[in-house]
């Protein structure tokens, strides 16, 4: 059975209702998305880029969608606050796919900067949204087509030419539902020439007993000489599935950092499609996955060097324990003519139990001479010599294990360009390894929990 059919039927039966709950460019793309989807088949588990993610199984359950735009009974700001101490952010909320009112946060932003509901933006700034919406994420990707067919809202971030947003933006996304629910979200991020901003996305789940699905598509347009950091921190529940497709295009001398941190999850598939389309672009792509129990994390990355003189550096690290599964598929593509490309990719993994599985597929495709490229992967266990040394100094084996796992993630944490976030992340990772993961409660943000372990 085609898992997509129920969604196509849902769309065809509710087109007007769906359109009414959204606007402009989002509605305009729906018919094409539906058409693309009706001839698409979901990639089977085991096929080239989906070796370890079963999209059909993830999409098959009968998820509810809030297409009637009913207000959810929760007030995220009331029940939830995600703070990074000593990191003052302009804080925005997304509940399901609904953007929360955020006048106070907005007041902290420089003039001309827009952070708002995507549907609202499609009405208020149609020229802007029309110009950028759906331009990077192709409908040939069934996840993008599904998102484009059903999405009604999300977030629009626009930083005009030359404007620097000093205060980091923080977007707290909350999934919840009494019944199995699916949130279809879209993030459209536009940085014009020389614009600068940083965004921290914290993804949470409330209600750990219900299967929930987050289907999100992110499009990032990075203008010439712009600078942008995106930190995505997933702290969801075991019954949560996340299918995220990120598309990035970088113009000349743009400088970006993408950092995907999976602390707690259920089943996650993150796709990063990054194109360095003009000379001098610099991309640092970082990722970290901590997988235990029977959690699954599959990161797929494609970095396309299409212009000369661009630089990319990718580092993904996993700790896989119990019966968890980690997968990494990374490809660097250097197009003909992209001379003086520098592209590096590393995937390092620690697998601690016989039941844990890690799959790694590093790939380089180079169609030009005069480039510096490297890729490497390593899967290993903890070092016996280090363990004995630590035990000799009095550390019990579990404590030594925890320290080595924490240490393993140190270089990924070092890559964070926001000092307070770096410190906080270090603590979150320490806590993640030190505590039993079943203690994790998504109703309280780990960002809030205080321990004196780091005092």
């Amino acid at each position: 059975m085609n898992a997509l059919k129920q969604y196509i039927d849902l769309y065809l039966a509710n087109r007007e209702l769906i359109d009414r709950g959204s606007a402009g460019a989002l509605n305009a793309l729906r018919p094409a998305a539906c058409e693309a989807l009706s001839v698409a088949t979901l990639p089977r588990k085991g096929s080239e880029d989906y070796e370890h993610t079963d999209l059909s199984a993830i999409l098959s359950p009968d998820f509810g969608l809030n297409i009637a735009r009913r207000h959810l009974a929760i007030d995220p700001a009331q029940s939830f606050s995600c703070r990074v101490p000593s990191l003052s952010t302009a804080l925005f909320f997304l509940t399901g796919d609904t953007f929360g009112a955020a006048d106070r946060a907005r007041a902290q932003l420089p003039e001309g900067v827009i952070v708002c509901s995507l549907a609202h933006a499609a009405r208020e700034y149609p020229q802007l949204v029309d110009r950028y919406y759906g331009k990077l994420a192709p409908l040939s990707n069934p996840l993008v087509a599904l998102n484009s067919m059903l999405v009604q809202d999300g977030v629009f971030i626009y930083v005009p030419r030359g404007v620097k947003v000093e205060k980091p933006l923080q977007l707290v996304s909350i999934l919840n539902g009494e019944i199995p629910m699916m949130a279809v979200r879209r993030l459209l991020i536009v940085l014009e020439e020389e614009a600068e901003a940083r965004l921290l996305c914290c993804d949470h789940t409330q209600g750990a007993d219900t299967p929930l699905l987050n289907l999100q598509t992110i499009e990032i347009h990075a203008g010439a000489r712009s600078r942008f950091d995106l930190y995505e921190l997933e702290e969801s529940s075991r019954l949560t599935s996340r299918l995220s497709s990120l598309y990035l295009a970088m113009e000349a001398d743009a400088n970006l950092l993408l950092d995907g941190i999976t602390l707690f999850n259920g089943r996650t598939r993150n796709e990063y499609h990054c194109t360095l389309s003009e000379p001098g672009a610099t991309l640092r792509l970082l990722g970290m996955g901590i997988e235990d129990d029977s959690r699954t994390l599959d990161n797929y990355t494609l970095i396309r060097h299409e212009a000369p003189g661009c630089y990319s550096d990718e580092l993904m690290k996993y700790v896989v324990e119990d019966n968890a599964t980690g997968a990494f598929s990374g490809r660097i593509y250097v197009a003909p003519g992209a001379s003086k490309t520098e592209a590096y990719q590393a995937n390092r993994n620690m697998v601690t139990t016989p039941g844990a599985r890690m799959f790694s597929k590093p790939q380089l495709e180079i169609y030009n001479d005069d480039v510096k490229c490297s890729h490497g992967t390593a899967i290993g266990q903890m070092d016996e010599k280090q363990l004995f040394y630590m035990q000799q100094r009095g550390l019990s084996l579990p404590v030594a294990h925890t320290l080595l796992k924490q240490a393993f993630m140190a270089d990924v944490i070092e890559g964070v360009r926001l000092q307070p976030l770096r410190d906080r992340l270090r603590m979150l990772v320490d806590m993640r390894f030190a505590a039993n993961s079943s203690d994790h409660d998504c109703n309280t943000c780990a960002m809030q929990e205080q321990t004196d372990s780091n005092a």
Partner: protein
Amino acid sequence: MLTVKDLHATIGGKEILRGINLEVHPGEVHAIMGPNGSGKSTLSMVLAGNPAYEVTHGEATFRGKNLLEMTPDVRSHEGLFLGFQYPVEIPGVSMVNFMRAAINEKRKYLGEEPMSATEFLKLMREKRSIVDLDSKLASRSVNEGFSGGEKKRNEIFQMAMLEPRLAILDETDSGLDVDALRIVAEGVNKLRTPENATIVITHYQRLLDYIKPQIIHVLYKGRIIKTAGPELALEIEERGFDHIIREAENAEKS
């Protein structure tokens, strides 16, 4: 304090220790010397409980308790310290966090409260000065990027932090220049008390100019073939191990 009786141990099925007998009392300094491959490092690893080695026969008691039944961390809590010949680098684990974990694990074992952060930092400062360890090194990852001399000084610094009852120093002099050797040896001497004991494992007499042992053992092919006073070290320095080995072999034949 430490009693070892007829200890045999293997690694990878190969017997390295073939009947070690050793008795160490509080306040004593012993030196264990011997040619390469005689089993000196193996003895230190076995006493510290390295799981790579298997004890096949014999016994070892430490302060009346069966040492061989204890895990390496419990041996450490009981007061046994091993200064490694090759201290291990642990990238990503800071010296401060490592030492704090070590101190607090020991306190937990002894039923004491964890040490406060201020108390701990004060202790670090105090002990660092014993071996002139740079404060920058203490804030770095364990042994990572340390020079040979710094690694050895770091071993003695950790020994000072943990205040062991019995310290086994495995080739602490190897790779050290004269100045570093003096600093390390002086550190060891400062830590000596009538209650604790030290076993120094070394190739050379050189270290013993600084750390004065009362008892010297010569280890050969997994057995202690000779035990004598400090004069034995001088004899070895002058004439090498060969004549002692011959002597022992002749004694065995007759």
